[in-house]
């Protein structure tokens, strides 16, 4: 029996309680660096069909051709040659936590995943480095034909659905990091909700990086058939290492007529992770897609969840909260592309910077020429907790139709001395007062979370706020 050995890492961020790591128990890993051989080795190891190998290799060439994006956050610290692109933690995926190796299971125990599963989830998927080590779905949903597993299983067991949608929302050459993901993707989630089925409580995926110099490239594909509903939640953490890790996911959502998909993210990577993610949804007639996107961790995040409103009366919602502390840059935002008439979108972004951290809001609203009766509202508010922190807003509007109603509001404010004094005059310490104000600022985001996550987020924020006032 393997004893779990965990190492606490305090040197970088003493407040980050998920910074521990297990000893390496991986059963297979590709050599460091990226090459056609590495890509072929991943595909071969997974026994993939020929078309997927070709897809991966083509994506690799896209990745190599494309320049690093220079318009956003500083990515110069990424050393693509010093990364493991595939690390397989266990021989097999388990359907019972008892079958997960002890050290890995104990890590997920510490992260509270099995407990959350018992209490309030309809299904759980737990990815550790490159592979999903555990997954489950409630039996009744299974019987209704709801599919929830990793993308590899989707490819293997449901090729007809998988191939129809995979890479259609985000093509392999969409951007440099989508290309990278397409070349080396592994794990992630494959969710299929049949027509009219409503998954009443959330499905959750948890992504954990354990190895150092690791790249995690999960791939998620969510298909919601007509009139269905699903709420998918993802969480993520990683050990604190002195060298950087890379997380580059691709998430594609297809919301068919009148479907409703909510995708909630609580991103809490350690401060040595580059988090460069492409997320995009298509919403057909009357469909509703909501990205609830919280970014607390990582060194650099670049992520702009997008919704293509393809059918009339489709609605898109992007509600995001970002927190950037010392050494962090959260470059996040949203894209709402109104292709069809009478589509609506609503964007609310809240960001907080402290200790020299930087938040950027980057948003794009596009209305196609023939789309009429479009309504869109964007509101972003930034809160600075000190003089050295920074926030910027880059709203892009691209309106080709005359018949639209677009609202945009942006504010940047400093935390108010009068608010602090008011709370302190009621006995709250300066740090408690600050934390309460910060919680209030994030309230529009937090109130959208299931209660358990709201509590956890407020607790994480409180940890982040500790020592924030002098």
């Amino acid at each position, binding site marked *: 029996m393997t004893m779990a050995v965990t190492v606490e890492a305090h040197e970088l961020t003493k407040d980050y309680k998920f910074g521990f790591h297990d000893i390496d128990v991986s059963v297979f890993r590709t050599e460091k660096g990226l090459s056609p051989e590495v890509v072929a080795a991943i595909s071969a190891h997974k026994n993939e069909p020929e078309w997927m190998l070709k897809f991966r290799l083509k994506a690799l060439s896209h990745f190599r051709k494309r320049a690093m994006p220079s318009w956003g956050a500083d990515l110069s610290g990424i050393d693509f040659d010093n990364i493991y692109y595939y690390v397989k933690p266990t021989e097999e995926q388990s359907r019972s936590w008892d079958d997960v190796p002890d050290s890995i299971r104990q890590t997920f125990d510490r992260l509270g995943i099995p407990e959350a599963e018992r209490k309030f989830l309809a299904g759980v998927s737990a990815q550790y480095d490159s592979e999903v080590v555990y997954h489950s779905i409630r039996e009744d949903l299974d019987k209704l034909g709801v599919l929830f597993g990793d993308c590899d299983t989707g490819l293997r067991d449901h090729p007809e659905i998988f191939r129809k949608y995979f890479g259609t929302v985000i093509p392999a050459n969409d951007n440099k990091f989508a290309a990278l993901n397409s070349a080396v993707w592994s794990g992630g989630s494959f969710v299929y909700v049949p027509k009219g089925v409503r998954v009443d409580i959330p499905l959750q995926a948890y992504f954990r990086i354990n190895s150092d110099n690791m790249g995690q490239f999960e791939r998620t594909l969510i298909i919601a058939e007509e009139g269905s509903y699903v709420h998918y939640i993802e969480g993520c953490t990683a050990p604190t290492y002195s060298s950087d890790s890379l997380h580059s996911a691709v998430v594609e959502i297809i919301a068919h007529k009148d479907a409703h998909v909510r995708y909630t993210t609580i991103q809490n990577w350690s401060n040595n992770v580059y988090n460069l993610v492409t997320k995009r949804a298509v919403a057909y007639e009357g469909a509703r897609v909501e990205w609830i996107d919280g970014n607390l961790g990582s060194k650099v995040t670049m992520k702009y969840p997008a919704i293509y409103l393809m059918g009339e009366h489709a609605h898109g919602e992007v509600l995001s909260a970002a927190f950037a502390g010392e050494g962090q840059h959260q470059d996040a935002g949203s894209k709402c592309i109104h292709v069809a008439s009478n589509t609506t979108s609503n964007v609310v972004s809240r960001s907080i910077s402290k200790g020299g951290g930087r938040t950027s809001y980057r948003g794009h609203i596009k209305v196609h020429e023939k789309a009429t009766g479009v309504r869109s509202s964007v509101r972003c508010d930034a809160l600075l907790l000190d003089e050295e922190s920074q926030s910027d807003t880059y709203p892009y509007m691209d309106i080709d139709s005359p018949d639209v109603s677009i609202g945009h509001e942006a504010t940047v404010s400093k935390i108010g001395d009068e608010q602090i004094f008011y709370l302190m005059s009621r*006995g*709250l310490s*300066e740090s408690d007062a600050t934390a309460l104000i910060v919680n*209030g600022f994030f*309230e529009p985001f937090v109130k959208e979370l299931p209660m358990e996550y709201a509590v956890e987020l407020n607790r994480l924020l409180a940890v982040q706020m500790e020592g924030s006032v002098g």
Partner: protein
Amino acid sequence: MSDSARLVVEGLRARVEGKEILNGVDLVVPTGEVHALMGPNGSGKSTLAYTLLGHPNYEVTGGSASFDGTDLLPLAADERARLGMFLCFQYPTSIPGVSVVNFLRAALKAQGKEMPAREFLRTLSAVMGELKIDESFRSRYINDGFSGGEKKRMEILQLALLRPRLAVLDETDSGLDVDALRTVAEGVDRVRGTDMGVLVITHYPRILEYLRPDAVHVLHRGRVVVSGGHDLARRIEADGYDPILGAGAGTAAREGNP
């Protein structure tokens, strides 16, 4: 100065943004008594309130202030609050996203006055009823979108729940119509008692008709220049400040407190 005195202010000087506002305030508010502080605009009344409660922008340049024998001046605002001091703000700030109910629980907890959830909610309901505050206030955000009268009642609600040992009411009556004024004054009247001192800062003697102060002090140019009983407030209402300040300015400062 007697030992039972709660708030003792002697020769207090303070400035804000480099400007001297308080020029040697002497004031004693014993426990169980209601004292009124009046004075023309700009005389330093609100400055005194903020200085006593420890607002960081108000710099004390001389004198002393103690509460129940504890020197206030080294203490931060939250420490003063935990000693039992309370300020009813003239213009309370709003804090979007923080619900009234969460805030009140946090404040009670910070002051070591936490109650079990059911008791808290029952108490809150009762006090809100007395103050004619709608139940929906619980889930509203602190002062966010509140009318002037609602803000004042929100202050009195906190006063009633936190039960301080010294309450400073900074023009709590200003901007209220007659009915709201009565509600607020009755709210204060209900919580006052032998274990609480009250310092009411006001322009208008009307609230004093409800609160029946034990003493009235007049602040002028940063000093207490005249003190007296309730009749002093009535004289000010009838004749204005001129006769009083003309007669007493400069000489009454040291004998200000009875």
